[in-house]
């Protein structure tokens, strides 16, 4: 995966996560949660926009954030499958958010001093937001895990459902590894032990069981579930119906 591909990966994770979180708007279990989920969606969207703009510049073909968001097809998206999964119930959404935000927080924390100054600048801003996402999702996972019998069952089912998709966050890629050795970016595969420790602590407090790791081979970024094409069809429909229009 090239340098551009790496930046697009971070951008697309944030963009697709924002799109899914936005779907909750006016549907959350509490009004306060409507506000919180919109907030997190806005944070993710903000990061996505900065990184997409940067990826367009790195690529050097004159593509803007909107060109990249609205005019690529599913197979060109570099996000992990975790973020594109349907929202499911509130427990599934919180499981997805916990796993993603712990990963993002670690990644941003370690990206602050990297050689790619643009990524470092985005990371410096995004790490504070990520800390809040981790806090918010952890609290819910604990409340639901250690709440009622029903919420415990739902939370455990959600963790079981989403767990197999977490492998992809730590994909080992030779190009990315080489760039990280040169100090340009962070190799996500190095984040796994810290991620596991953080997630384990939340699951334990939530009285939940961590699923066993599957031994299936890791899916590469760029490989998707059926959900992504549907998500993009909705997201892109208006923009694509008016080629070249300004909004």
């Amino acid at each position, binding site marked *: 995966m090239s340098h551009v591909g790496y930046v697009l990966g971070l951008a697309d994770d944030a963009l697709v996560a924002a799109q899914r979180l936005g779907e909750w708007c*006016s549907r959350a279990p509490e009004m306060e949660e409507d*506000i919180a989920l*919109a907030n997190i969606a*806005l944070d993710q969207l903000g990061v996505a926009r900065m990184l997409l703009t940067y990826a367009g510049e790195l690529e050097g073909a004159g593509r803007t954030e909107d060109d990249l968001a609205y005019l690529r097809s599913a197979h060109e998206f570099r996000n992990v499958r975790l973020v594109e999964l349907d929202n499911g119930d509130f427990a599934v959404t919180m499981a997805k958010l916990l796993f993603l935000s712990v990963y993002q927080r670690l990644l941003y924390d370690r990206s602050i001093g990297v050689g790619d100054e643009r990524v470092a600048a985005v990371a410096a801003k995004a790490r504070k937001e990520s800390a809040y996402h981790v806090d918010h999702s952890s609290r819910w996972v604990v409340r*639901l895990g250690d709440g009622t019998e*029903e919420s415990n069952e739902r939370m455990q089912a959600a963790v079981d459902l989403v767990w197999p998709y977490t492998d992809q966050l730590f994909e080992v890629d030779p190009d990315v590894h080489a760039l990280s050795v040169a100090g340009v970016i962070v190799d996500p595969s190095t984040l796994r032990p810290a991620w596991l420790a953080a997630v384990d602590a939340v699951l334990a407090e939530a009285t939940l069981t961590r699923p066993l790791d599957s031994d299936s081979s890791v899916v590469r970024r760029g490989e998707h579930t059926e959900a992504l094409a549907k998500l993009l069809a*909705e997201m892109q429909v208006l923009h694509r119906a008016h080629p070249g*229009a300004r*909004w």
Partner: protein
Amino acid sequence: MYGNDFAPLLEQVDSAERDLQQAAGRDVAAGADLQGYFDTIVAADQKIEPRDWMPEAYRKTLIRQIAQHAHSEIIGMQPEGNWISRAPSLKRKAILLAKVQDEAGHGLYLYAAAETLGISRDELVEMLIDGRQKYSSIFNYPTLTWADVGAIGWLVDGAAIVNQVPLCRCSYGPYARAMIRVCKEESFHQRQGFEILHTLSHGTPEQKAMAQDAVDRWWYPSLAMFGPPDGDSTHSERSMAWKIKRFTNDELRQRFVDMCVQQAGILDLRIPDPDLRWDEARGQHDYTQPDYDELMRVIKGDGPCNQERMEHRRRAHSDGAWVRAAARTYAEKRAKNAV
């Protein structure tokens, strides 16, 4: 930025805020005559606070009005929320998300203001869900195209500002304070709607047509937001005496029309009223009244989206029941362990 600002109106929010702070140093002495004391406070343009005695009808009127207002903010998230997933640029998506999030925040401030009158948010939400309390009928119209997001911001948020700025001087302190917070955010909502329409109107022919179609559909329902004409308005007079209301429905509607005409010119969009014209003698515009029979039908439940809006709210509430129960149970366990 395009001269569209509701700036003069919004300056009144700041002056209402200053007056409210001054009114806090109250110089009327409380005595045994509760009604007399209440009347004096209201007459002196000071604020009734939750600790004060107030007539039961005043309390009931406020609960009904504030709750209806809060419900409107919450139901109002739906028509615009409908376009978050399809917003045509990432910038527009971010602005719209932030706007709909604000509306949820407005709902929360207003429920909190209503709670100071001795009713809980849970009870109010129940009354919304079982249909005992209403929300603004404007949200029973559909958002069919992206331009509707612009038209809602320009016209619906614009009408809300015209309605709400005088409420910043309402005699009930908590409501007045909530309205000051809300109005400050509404100006941003109105501006983003105006900008959406301005961009569409100056874009491709399809975009321009989309903008005009949206204004055509939202104009009369927006005029109806000010309520029935003064002659038919049931609670108006008493609310004016209590200084809950400061202007009549027709006065506010006229003010709104006069502001919109000038802005429609800048937008290069037509207001769908062939009889709209400047009346030199009155110094105001003559305009066609909205269809008040339609307004009554929509209020009674027969609008294009009443069913959907209520169904959506009920489903969100019932789908979330297990989550709220879990949060309660978890908090109880914690409290027990802490003892």
